[in-house]
């Protein structure tokens, strides 16, 4: 960005520069499938969708805790399910050499999926 375009800034210039770089660099989270990497390309799509569903389940669970609508048995069940789901996701991410950052997709004007 041209310097004369910055009319005003307050606070930490280092923090501003760092954040603006993140905003303007865009998200590299695109599926780059080629014949050589089709396995990991597909895995990335599938795991991203699973991660999205897992996060939605987690949010729903937190709402139910907030609503105090769970019994002792249900809370144990819920905790165990979410915990195992997270562990399983970690295993799959390791197998396909993916990180949390990889499990995101840029949906253009809609922003990031996760």
């Amino acid at each position, binding site marked *: 960005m041209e310097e004369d375009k910055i009319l005003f800034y307050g606070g930490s210039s280092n923090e*501003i520069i760092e*954040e603006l770089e993140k905003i303007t660099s865009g998200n590299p989270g695109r599926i780059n499938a080629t014949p050589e990497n089709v396995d990991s390309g597909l895995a990335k799509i599938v795991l991203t969708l699973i991660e999205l569903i897992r996060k939605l389940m987690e949010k729903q*669970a937190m709402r139910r805790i907030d609503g105090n609508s769970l019994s002792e048995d249900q809370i144990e069940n819920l905790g165990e399910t979410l915990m195992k789901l997270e562990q399983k996701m970690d295993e799959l991410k390791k197998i396909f050499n993916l990180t949390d950052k990889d499990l995101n997709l840029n949906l253009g004007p809609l922003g990031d999926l996760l």
Partner: protein
Amino acid sequence: MPVTVYAVFYSSEVHDDMPSDIDLFLSGSEGKFEFIYANKLTALVSLQKEKNPVYSQQEVLAYASIVEKISKRYAILPMRYGSVVDSLEDVIALLQKNSESFYAVLDSVKNKEEYSLRLLFSQRHQHDTLNMESTEIIKVPPAILQGNTETKNYLLKKYQEHIVEENRHQYIEKIQSHVTQEIRKITEIFELKKRVTPALILDAVLLIERSAKDEILALASRIQSRYPEHNVILTGPWPPYNFTQIKIE
């Protein structure tokens, strides 16, 4: 020969204020520029030198710089980099087919400029807030999560993260609501863009009268005074990219 289109504006503005030499007006820019007229509209164009040009960041910046120069002079509909048509006749057809949409957009941006106003979370403040809130939650966990089992400890950790996130959303919404009210004092033409990074509290683009530059500067200063713990950044003026989006036929 392919033609690059930079911007469209009312011909009357050019006639009232005709630059004696377009190339001189766009000095420093490579290429031979032409004004193409149709109906009441004018397009600033240049003939492409090569049939298959190499696209580079430098080319994009040069294109943006030309659009910028022309927007300082006229109320324009800025085109995006890569707006190329096959011939000068196609430029005329473009102006004729879309004239009504172009008039409407040009009327809406007349004598106005675009600015970007962003409010960013201070990392230090964010860190302090999160720590403080987490500590508060640990003190009083929900009754259902009390008990020292592996699953409850796991859920409690998730619950803390959830509460911190909820608090953060509420905090951001409160600031957004206040800043939006402040923006409305200057203009009703603005958009809040999606927050693409967690540190972004507010990302607004505003269209304001060219004469209201001091007001927007004062607004940024007021917001910074109100939220000294965060970072405000105001940039502009920009060509009205965010307020001239139409579907071209």
